[in-house]
């Protein structure tokens, strides 16, 4: 038996530990297609429209991707367990609007931000009660929760943007407008979050539990893994991270807009999947999820360079999501006969 394995799967034999292998080991295996696609996209667009390659433009892409990339990073922990959180868009909006209202009423922006984060975590807690306590499928439960949160945001803001922020306050100047080494602070926060979550995913029992539940939930339960607690933690994390995204959005746009963040949850899920977090579960990569989200944003920005009318951009983005996921699916199918 063992000799047969050796023949079929050369990668099982000792191999050269190249830089790529090491990098892939650290960040998780399946992000490569999204990363290649992202680099390819930048190169192709850059060749046809050199102005796209300017540092300003590229950092603009990164900056605009931060919100969805953050959400996708948190979603990686849920998707690999066979759950999903479609309320991240709503959480983003609610934390931004609620924090803005508190600031408008004179609360210190930092304190208001902490309240906004707590609110976002509370949303995560509510999601875990509904999904794990009442046992409603997370797809439908969090989809509805997203509407609840957007509706709540619209109600408490009276449907209007919350403006009049003290834009000279460090909360806005640092998180919204600040730069370190010419790169927006929000991008650094994304980098930090991805790094921390990657360590959590790859080097803590929680990170392993998350993927093991995705591999075989019954076996995980039998091995003593606290399945419900692990899933609940992932919902709390997802809410917390969507809250961070909401605060960064508030700091950047300097207003709490109840109509913002449209479709963020779908971009985040699609980004996570494209980046190498299959919906079938068991595998996860935070880095890939973030890259996938950046890729989707880069596509929609690149479309502008080709004079594609704005009315067609949603159409094109949808097509690109389908083709990216299909390429990934085809690759997987080709690999699976060996795995079986």
């Amino acid at each position, binding site marked *: *038996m*063992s000799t*047969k*394995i*050796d023949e079929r*799967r050369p990668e*099982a*034999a000792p191999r050269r530990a190249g830089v790529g292998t090491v990098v892939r080991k650290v960040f998780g295996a399946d992000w490569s297609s999204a990363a290649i696609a992202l680099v390819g996209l930048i190169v192709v667009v850059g060749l046809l429209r050199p102005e796209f390659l300017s540092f300003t433009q590229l950092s603009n892409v990164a900056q605009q991707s931060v919100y969805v990339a953050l959400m996708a990073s948190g979603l990686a922990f849920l998707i690999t367990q066979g759950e999903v959180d479609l309320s991240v868009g709503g959480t983003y909006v609610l934390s931004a609007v609620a924090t803005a209202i508190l600031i408008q009423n004179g609360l210190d922006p930092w304190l208001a931000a902490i309240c906004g984060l707590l609110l976002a975590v509370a949303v995560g807690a509510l999601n875990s009660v509904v999904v794990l306590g009442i046992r409603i499928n997370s797809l439908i439960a969090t989809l509805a929760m997203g509407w609840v949160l957007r509706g709540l945001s619209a109600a408490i803001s009276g449907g209007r943007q919350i403006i009049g922020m003290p834009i000279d306050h460090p909360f806005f100047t640092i998180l919204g407008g600040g730069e370190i080494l010419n790169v927006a602070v929000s991008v650094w926060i994304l980098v930090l979050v991805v790094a921390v979550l990657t360590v959590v995913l*790859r*080097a*803590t*029992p929680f990170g*392993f*539990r998350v*993927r*093991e539940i995705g*591999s*075989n939930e*019954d*076996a*995980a*339960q*039998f*091995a*003593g*893994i*606290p399945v419900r607690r692990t899933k609940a933690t992932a919902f709390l994390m997802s809410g917390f991270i969507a809250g961070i995204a909401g605060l960064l959005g508030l700091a950047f746009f300097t207003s709490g807009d109840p109509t913002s963040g449209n479709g963020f949850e779908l971009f985040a899920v699609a980004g996570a999947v494209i980046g190498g977090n299959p919906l079938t579960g*068991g595998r996860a990569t935070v880095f890939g999820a973030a890259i996938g989200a950046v890729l989707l944003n880069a596509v929609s920005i690149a479309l502008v360079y080709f004079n594609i009318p704005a009315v067609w951009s949603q159409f094109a983005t949808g097509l690109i999501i389908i083709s990216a996921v299909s390429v990934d699916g085809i690759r997987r199918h080709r690999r699976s006969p060996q*795995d*079986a």
Partner: protein
Amino acid sequence: MYTLEAQDISKSYGGVRALDRAAIAVRPGSVHALLGENGAGKSTLVKIMTGAIRPDSGVLRLDGADVRFASTADAFRQGVGVVSQELSLFPHLSVLANMFPMREPRRGPFVDRREMLRLAVPILDELGLEVDPMVPVSRLPLAERQLVEIGKALVTKPRVLLLDEPTSALESGATDRLLHILRVLRSQDVAVVFVSHILEEVMSVCDEITVLRDGVVVTAGEDVGAHTVESVVSAMIGDRPRVVVRPSGRALAEQAVATTTSGLRVDGVTLHRTVQDVSFAVEPGEIVGLAGLAGSGPAELLRALAGIESPVRGTISLPGGIKAPHGQRAHIAAGVAYVSGDRRRLGLMLDKPVWENVVQVRTMAMGKDGAFLRVPGLVTRAGEHMSRLNIRASSPEATAGSLSGGNQQKVVLAKWLDNTPSTIVLDDPTRGVDIGAKAEIHGLLGDLAAAGAVVVLRSTDLEELVAVCERVIVLYRGRICAELRGDGLSTSALLQLMNTGELAPEGSQAPAS
């Protein structure tokens, strides 16, 4: 004159020869038993006869004409049906719908229910299944589901029917029902191939027997009257010594278990709907077996020992005098290991590397190695377990799914031993495991007990219970009916107690007691 003949069938897997010029010939209206130990090639031959796999060489003849089956569906269309151990019914659909999977009689684009009833009702009546055909299968007890499965095969009027270990699901009164079913099949001139490991039953219901040993036919279609249980057993086993040599060292097992002074105590335990007022104790160093038909409680009792199910009444105390905590996870933390034979569903993550499976309980679930994990150290530890338990895989990085059944089961054992348990509860741990790995696992259990573990084993393989356990507690309808040990411990005694709850006096053992 034979309905189905298989001749000169050979089949190899990798380098292992599963069948070597094997043959079987089944007459119409006759019940032909196919016997052999696990791994002797029975299931390979059954799979070849039903089109599930193709032989490397050899011929199949149906009514004298050479045939080739492209698939089980193809074999089915040509008149070869199979009723297997694992039921293939759709639980949410009605009995009627289940009897015509993908081949409902139609009237235009619609399903012709009247025609379905006309075809199905006589068969259900004949099988003695008195249920409304519109009832969903999920509401039927297991034994009746098995009848539906047989009915489903009969609807197509098969020429040949293979019954692959049907009695394990038929439960109480199994033999009577089986005799009845076989009578029905005989009257319809169906050629029946009967695969079972319950020899007494085989002797009482079959007409002819074929015995396989190591892929070779050692008894070819002989009349059952010429045989006794003893002669069949010796044909199955040959001159190989019955007691297997224990391959692993005792010193190795000693580090794998946590030793305690006092044992496991089960005191007046009653479980929801199954076990009634059961008390027993298992001391460190003992291997105690639990036997009983499905539904009479042994599996449920094991689940209670593992903390998956809580007793309605009574108490369980774990070795060391610890009162059993609440919940499965707390039991694991208290030193209980629950090794399931259902490794694909409950034991392993098939897509994950072996090392991650091995360290799952201790490192991931119990978090005993701290908040930050060093993967290379874990891989090394898993590698040590692999060499200790003789797990054959190319490396700890190989995916668990790429291993053979026996090695997979050893990985399941390794992951529990990694957590140094004091109580090891095993549920059919050698199901579908080849004979070599089985012997190794049995040896390991002996070593673990010798090292001071409390070992409780449930098995559907009675010979395994007899071979491994010092004593076996037999449950009948949820209560302990006997405890067998020493010379009194035999498969025939177990079988009788499991089926009737009592042991007939010596000499009066009727075949269909």
